[in-house]
């Protein structure tokens, strides 16, 4: 069962060198308040497992990442993530590149305590040559087919974000896509859940199929209003597109990034949220 906690207490549970799974997909329903808390921490040498978006970019530019395990890093409406691109160009991170399907099978293996899951995805491509983690396996049956053995992507801690959670750590999403968040939760030794809104147990509402994350996999739960910002959230998948463009533009230029960092990331989460609010007023 998830204990009621805070972003600060969650990040205090993390250690240098840990493998951290981050839920969401690209620039969609990312636990950004928790990511920002890591950004402000002294943590280092993390291995990040993520369908990457601005979470990966922020942690790369903050020097938190030793290794990234991901099938892509994108912000969807802005195709490329400047901080991630710079980290690759400057070779400041190790990168284990996956195909999307392989990545999901790696989480499925971890979630079900299997050493690997077999798939054809990856065969013949450079995923197999650039990613030293990957091996093949031969089918023991008559076909004798050679398949990729996608290793379990097990994490020490996963961080996922839901639209609504109850105080026990059960989580519900409002959009059309669960992404891989329940798998991230099951693939980790401990999972911390942040949510836009907390309710009392029994008051999550909605269709039962949307109750994606179970308290049995959750160690701590915290309420972070605006915690996915600027990534998409809610039933319509709303994203703060203008602020995302501001982030992307700033991230692509060192001076502009310093100004962005000073204004939005040097203070606490409340400062971030109020500065974003002010920024929008200035744009109006």
């Amino acid at each position, binding site marked *: 069962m998830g204990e009621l906690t805070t972003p600060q207490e969650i990040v205090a549970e993390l250690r240098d060198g840990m493998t951290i799974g981050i839920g969401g*997909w690209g620039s969609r329903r990312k636990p950004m308040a928790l990511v920002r808390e890591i950004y402000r921490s002294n943590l280092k040498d993390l291995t990040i497992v993520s369908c*990457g978006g601005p979470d990966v970019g922020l942690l790369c530019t903050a020097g938190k990442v030793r290794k990234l395990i*991901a*099938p*892509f*890093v*994108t912000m969807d409406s802005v*195709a*490329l993530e400047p901080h*991630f*691109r710079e980290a*690759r*160009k400057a*070779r400041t991170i190790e990168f284990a*590149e*996956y*195909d*999307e*399907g*392989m990545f*999901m099978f790696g989480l499925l293996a971890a979630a079900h305590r299997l050493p690997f899951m077999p*798939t*054809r*995805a*990856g*065969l*013949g*491509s*450079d*995923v197999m040559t*650039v990613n030293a983690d990957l091996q093949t396996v031969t089918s023991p049956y008559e*076909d*004798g*087919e*050679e398949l990729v053995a996608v290793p379990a992507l097990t994490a020490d801690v996963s961080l996922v974000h839901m639209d609504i959670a109850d105080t026990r750590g059960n989580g519900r999403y409002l*959009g*059309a*896509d*669960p*992404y*891989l968040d329940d798998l991230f939760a099951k693939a980790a030794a401990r999972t911390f859940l942040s949510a836009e809104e907390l309710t009392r147990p029994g008051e999550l509402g909605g269709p039962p199929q949307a109750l994606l994350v179970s308290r049995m996999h959750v160690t701590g739960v915290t309420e972070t209003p605006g915690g996915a910002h600027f990534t998409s959230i809610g039933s319509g*998948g709303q994203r703060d597109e203008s602020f995302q463009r501001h982030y992307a533009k700033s991230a692509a230029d060192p001076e502009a990034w310093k100004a962005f960092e000073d204004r939005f990331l040097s203070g606490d989460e409340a400062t971030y949220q109020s500065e974003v609010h002010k920024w929008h007023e200035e744009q109006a």
Partner: protein
Amino acid sequence: MTVTAEASRAEVCVVACAEAWRGDGEILAAAMGTCSVLGARLARSTFEPGLLTTDGGALLTSEPIPLGAAGEPEGWLPFREHLWLVQNGRRHVMMGASQIDRYGNSNISAIGDWAQPKSQLLGMRGAPGNTICNPTSYWIPRQSPRVFVEQVDIVSGVGYDKRTWLGLNGSRFLDLRRVVTDLGVYDFRGPEHQMRLVSVHPGVTVEQAKEAAGFELALPEGGDVPETRQPTAEELRVIREVLDPRALRDKEVTA
């Protein structure tokens, strides 16, 4: 002047993309890029009504919908189900590519040396699995020798020259169908499955198509390259009035 003669290059491209799914029946038409998405929905609206198409998100819509519009769902296809469907195979995807070579190897991962790329792109995304598991076509809005390259820097999507390495089992679902660009239509029916120029779009010469390729293109038997077919009046009506009234296609292909 007939109505069809007024088709823009983008509209010719949309129809050429749509043709990729002709004969596919009841499978998912997965598309990336404006003309490709329009092509999938146009094919379903006209000659390939069994196709399944999405709202660009997690929903399969009950009818082909205009770009950017919402539609009533007839099915649910979040990313995880999409990834399973790739393995299942009832899917023909039309992807983009930053580089593609004569055997259909494609790159969306990075430019330069993988270990320290000159330019990091999206990453592999689903290209390795797509190409090895279900039919794959490509939509390339701006053909140039920088895109049609002798050799891709990184193999994201698998090409036909990998068949020997893959063996009979590994390559049995490798099925690269066609490449549509702003200049013409290509398939992989050249010698040893090399890329072949199938047709050039109206107003484009064979020389232009060749010059915009960084490798030698195979030509149809006999050497005569036909013109890509013009949209029918009904296809133009569906594109202009139903699927893309804001003419977003003309922003992707300006010729």
